[in-house]
């Protein structure tokens, strides 16, 4: 069970309170009704699935109930940073 720093609760909480919510920084196209099949595929299905630094969404569903973002290393499972939804992607280097 991971320990996750919730940027809204401002403390680390056990993973049991959280729900993972997929890759972060994939914005729903503003003009979604007009995009091509390829663009829709990229938006909805294609995932970077990196070995190393991933930007991902979590929801503190059994806590403050907020969605937020995290930068985590998928090899060590270590969190590098968590930050509020809507904040820009931070510049970070993966741990390897």
């Amino acid at each position, binding site marked *: *069970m*991971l320990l996750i720093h919730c940027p809204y609760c401002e403390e680390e909480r056990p*993973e*049991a309170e959280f*729900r*993972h919510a*997929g*890759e972060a920084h994939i914005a729903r196209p503003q003009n979604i009704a007009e995009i091509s*099949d*390829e663009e*829709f*595929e*990229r938006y*909805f*299905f*294609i*995932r*970077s*699935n*990196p*070995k190393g630094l*991933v930007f*991902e969404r979590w929801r503190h569903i059994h806590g403050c109930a907020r969605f937020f973002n995290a930068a*985590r290393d*998928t*090899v*060590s*499972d270590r969190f590098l940073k968590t930050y509020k939804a809507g904040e820009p992607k931070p510049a970070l280097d993966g741990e390897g």
Partner: protein
Amino acid sequence: MKKYSAFAIAREALRGNTGWPEQWSSPEPKKSYDVIIIGGGGHGLGTAYYLAREHGITNVAVLEKGWLGGGNTGRNTTIIRSNYLYDESAALYNHAIKLWAGLSQDLNYNVMYSARGVMMLAHNVHDVQVFKRHIHANRLNGVDNEWLTPEQAKRYCPPLEISRDARYPVVGAALQRRGGTARHDAVAWGYARAASDRGVDIIQNCEVTGIRRGPDGAITGVETTRGPIKARKVGVVAAGHSSVLMQMADVQVPLESFPLQALVSEPVKPVFPCVVMSNSVHAYISQSDKGELVIGAGTDQYTSYSQTGSLSILQHTLEAICELFPMFTRMKMLRSWGGIVDVTPDRSPILAKTPVKGLYVNCGWGTGGFKATPGSAHVFAHTIARDEPHPINASYTLERFRTGRLIDEAAAAAVAH
């Protein structure tokens, strides 16, 4: 290849078992091959074997970054079944089951395919509807799968708790008698030995670090930790690492990799005669020939390449096991481990050509790839050799996510009302 037999064993016994040859040779990589298979698990080794046996392509290298069968082949709970809903799935997994049945003889290697039956438990009205839909579809597809009452289920698997007072009582079960288990390591080793015997080079400790493409975009070879190797056809069969490898060729895939755990108990005398799965209660259990209860747990919720997982995942699984089999509470967990599974949006694999000429991919098996090993390898070899899919894997394309023609086994089974 020195043939394995009871006679050979008796002869070797007299010689102190010192005359057994290497099961497969471990050559240095050559500069160039006709086909390179990336990934030395069951699917990859099998692909190489069928390339050689069915298509006469023997100038093949299997590149494995670690040791053969060290990925999901050696980390899964070895359940084999084919009672999938959709025609495409039934065809693929049933193709595999037919090959499983003769695989030990085919490879001259006992892979211990044991058709002890796979029983899937229904716990509510919705499960019954879903299972019956499977059973009817399976019957018309020629796949065995039958409905059992709770009492019949208990007879088939005596430790099962079928009390109506259980939190989630067993209201019936779907049984595939030809389902069962096989010995995972033996599958990798058996294919390796048979492929090596046909001239395939099996190269361990050789990690692919790049995929080379020519000016026309077509595949020209790979870069590895043991130097560059040329090939005009490359098949990626790397389970959890498929995204990483495909990105080396600039192909984006709809995959996410999750840690999946499993565990075994201490060995006990035979107590559990078949395989039991419960999707609603989240339990997968069988007993190995060695006597260990082999229990499949779930995936963690987050993506990871760590090959470890959370204790809570194992707890969740054992709660379900002890609920279905209350006499196992005093059993002990001996060993737990994790693998990395790559999951597609529709939970069905991708077994296809890619937009890059000469690049083929076999991935996205999620938690269920072992059971398909021979079938997957067989049609993937066909796809590589002929540069076109076998009819059985023609639907398992990358494009289906763009057009929406999914093979959504998960949706078919999992939506509760």
